[in-house]
Every structure is written in structure tokens, then in C-alpha cells.
């Protein structure tokens, strides 16, 4: 009992692109310095999304496990790089990448699997119509949380390394010496998703739900999916940030509870 859904045509999109073109023109006239970046971003989003659309269509009709695994691998690799790229203080080589990839894996990937097997019960479990959008949403949010939490932890600990050492000198355990900073980092990583949950439906209509409604789903069905996504995203982000904090803290201190930025950061000798 799917309601009618109106397919968009190329002229429809061109009309919308006129708005962006107008904005680019106005920005250039007022010398606001955004026009070029805006144009590049608009072209990028069009090309990237069209490509993804084509790929997804191919994958959806084929539904071959090997293809899907490849897509998952690419998504997770890009997300891991993205996390590292957003760090103000660069982590040492493969170790930093490993932390990002590992925490994405145990949060986003495992939770997506859990949802597919137990909650949604898709058959087969790798049905791409479910797997790829779910994983994508989880990865996008978890990646943000990890990037924010990791950046806060490393950045604050580096700035306060004197205080951390002072606390160690007074006989505090390493976990106590970094407690406030870890707490702060956890909050930094979780705040976007907590805000999103609090504002959902009142201040903002979440994108996925809006999309489903536009595509003709009954609102209550869309809402149920949205709640599922919110819970998955929240727990995914939370577990991911906790994992990252644990791994980085462990790397930051050695077995003798000494502060060891030389093991963690590229430029700290």
C-alpha cells in the first residue's frame, strides 16, 4: 500500500541548480570569497552522488556478497582516513589509522550486523537496500563522534601535559590523572548525537525519515525506522568513542604510568 511517489526529472534538478548558481553569482558580486568553493562543492556532490547512485543500482540488482564487501571496505577505509585528517595533532602512522578503523569496525559494522540479523531480519542479511544505507548512516555519525572525541583528548592532554605529569608525581594513577580530560572528550564526541536526539521531531525532522516520507512511506513507519536509527547511531557512537579513548589513553601512558607523547604523536620527539 505504497502511496504514489513523484520521480524527479533532470529539468527539476536544473531548476534547483539555478538557485545555487544565483547564490554563486551574488557571492562573487559581493566579493564574499565563497563562490569558487561553493561551485566546486556543488559539482562534487552532483558527480559523487550520481556515481554512487549508479553503483548502488548495479549492486542492488546483483546483490553479490563480494561486491558488497568491497563497498563496505571502501566506506570504512575512507571514514578512517577522514577521522585522521580531522585531527589537529597528527597521530603516528599506521597506529592512528588502526585505532580509527578498529573502533569503526566494532561500533558501526558490528551494530549494523546486529540490526540486520536481529532487528530487521533482512533475508539474506546482506540485502544491500538495508545494509548499505544503515552502515552509511552509522559510519557517518560514528566517524564524527570519533573524530571529535579523539581530537579533544589528544589536544587537551597535550596542552595539559604539565598538569598530567604533576598529578602523576603526586602518586595518582594514570587513569586518575587523565580522568577530567577523558570525561570532557567523551562529552565532546557524544554531544552532536545527544543534541540530535533531543531536537528530533521538534526542532528538526531527521533526514532519513523525511526521505522515507517523501518517497511515500506512511509517517509512522518512517518514524519507527528513525527511532531505530537513532538508537543504533547513539550506541555506535558511544561505544566507538569509549574504544578510542581507551586505546589512545593506553598508548599515551606506558606500563610505568609515564606520559609518552613520543609514542602517540608525529611531531612530539
Amino acid at each position, binding site marked *: 500500500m505504497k502511496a504514489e511517489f513523484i520521480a524527479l526529472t533532470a529539468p527539476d534538478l536544473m531548476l534547483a541548480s539555478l538557485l545555487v548558481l544565483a547564490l554563486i553569482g551574488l557571492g562573487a558580486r559581493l566579493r564574499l570569497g565563497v563562490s569558487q568553493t561553493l561551485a566546486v562543492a556543488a559539482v562534487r556532490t552532483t558527480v559523487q552522488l550520481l556515481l554512487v547512485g549508479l553503483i548502488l543500482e548495479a549492486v542492488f540488482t546483483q546483490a553479490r556478497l563480494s561486491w558488497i564487501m568491497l563497498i563496505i571496505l571502501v566506506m570504512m577505509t575512507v571514514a578512517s582516513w577522514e577521522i585522521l585528517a580531522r585531527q589537529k595533532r597528527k597521530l603516528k602512522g599506521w597506529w592512528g589509522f588502526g585505532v580509527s578503523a578498529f573502533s569503526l569496525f566494532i561500533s558501526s559494522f558490528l551494530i549494523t550486523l546486529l540490526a540486520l540479523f536481529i532487528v530487521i531480519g533482512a533475508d539474506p542479511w546482506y540485502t544491500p537496500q538495508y545494509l548499505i544505507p544503515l552502515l552509511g548512516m552509522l559510519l557517518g555519525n560514528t566517524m564524527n563522534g570519533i573524530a571529535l572525541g579523539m581530537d579533544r583528548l589528544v589536544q587537551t592532554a597535550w596542552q595539559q601535559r604539565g*598538569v598530567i605529569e*604533576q598529578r602523576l*608525581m*603526586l*602518586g595518582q*594513577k594514570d587513569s586518575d590523572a587523565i580522568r577530567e580530560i577523558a570525561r570532557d572528550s567523551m562529552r565532546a564526541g557524544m554531544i552532536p548525537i545527544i543534541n540530535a536526539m533531543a531536537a528530533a521531531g521538534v526542532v528538526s525532522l531527521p533526514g532519513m525519515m523525511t526521505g522515507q516520507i517523501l518517497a511515500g512511506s506512511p509517517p509512522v513507519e518512517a518514524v519507527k525506522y528513525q527511532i531505530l536509527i537513532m538508537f543504533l547511531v547513539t550506541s555506535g557512537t558511544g561505544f566507538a568513542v569509549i574504544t578510542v579513548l581507551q586505546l589512545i589513553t593506553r598508548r599515551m601512558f606506558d606500563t*610505568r604510568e*609515564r606520559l609518552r607523547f613520543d609514542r602517540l604523536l608525529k611531531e612530539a620527539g
Partner: protein
Amino acid sequence: MTTTAMLRLEDLKIPSLEPVNLMVASGECIGLSGESGCGKTRLLRAIADMDEHDGQVYAEDIAQDQVRAHEWRRRVALLPAESLWWFDTVEQHFSAHQPHIGALGFEPDVMQWQVSRCSSGEKQRLSILRLLSGCPRVLLLDEPTANLDAGNAGRVEELIRNYLAEHNAIAIWVGHDAEQLTRVSQRQFRIRDGRIDGMDEA
């Protein structure tokens, strides 16, 4: 006799310094001086196990690596040249009741002070109280009176002397003032050209 030594350094290796061997008896205070950058601070940090190092340190016949690092530092406490504070009020930095407040010229209400409003000298005196509040067995003092006037420096000297006597603890006091080192310590050493002079007891 090794069993009477309370602090024992065996072939402790610090960059730019010859391996250090030293025995310090209960209640004793060692004075250590030398030009800045000669390795005094690094020596204290190695004894407190704050940096990686070779060689062994024993405190009351417990080897450094025999106990967990934070337990070691509760016994062997390092007072850095510049004290740092991370909470708003003084009191939040103290875990136990502090019995020595008066000894350094503070009123009891000092505990409610905002750290941000303390002068560097006040912070230095408070950091000594904070160090002693953990009842360490070995005090590693890195220029403990550098920011203090003569009156307060005298108070600190007396407080440390009393603490050592009362607890049978020991101290290594790093400073530049030769007269002060003679006053507070029983033996003095000087680091010169990567060697510790005055290490006479062989």
C-alpha cells in the same frame, strides 16, 4: 650495610651523566647543586620513575619496578620547580587533612582560596604542603624555595627538617644556594662535567 640505606641508587643512568651510585640513610638530607641543564632535574625524574632510564633504585629495599608506578611515586615524591594546579580551589588538590598549614604561615582558610589568585610564592609553599600531605618516604625537592623570600624559605627549611626527623624520611634537595644546602643537608654533591663530585663514600 645495604639494609640500613633507605634510598639506594645503583648504576642509575641519565643522559649526559655518568652512572650514579648513591646510598642515603634514614632521616638524611642530601644537597645537590650544579649549573642548569646539568641533569639535576632529570636525575630526580628518574628516581621518581617519570622518565625511562637504566639502573635500579631501591627505597627501603623495595625496588622501583617491584611496585606499580603510582605506588612508587607515593613513596618517592617529586616536587617540581614549578607547581601546577588543575582544580579551582586549593582544597580540591588535597586528599587528606593537612596538618602543616600553620608551619608555612598560612591560616586555615587557605584551603578555600582560589588557586588562580595565589601568587607564585604562595603556590610554591602550598605545593610543598600538598607533597607532604601524601606522607612520602623520600622527598625529591627541585629548588623548593626558588620563589620565596628569606623568611618563607626559612620556614620551608624548618618544615622539611622536622618532617624528616618525625617520619625518619629522607630528602634530596636541589638548589643553587650553597649556604642553604649546608644548613639543610648532611652531605652535599655538585654535578660538574657530567660527574657528581663529592661522591666520596666508596
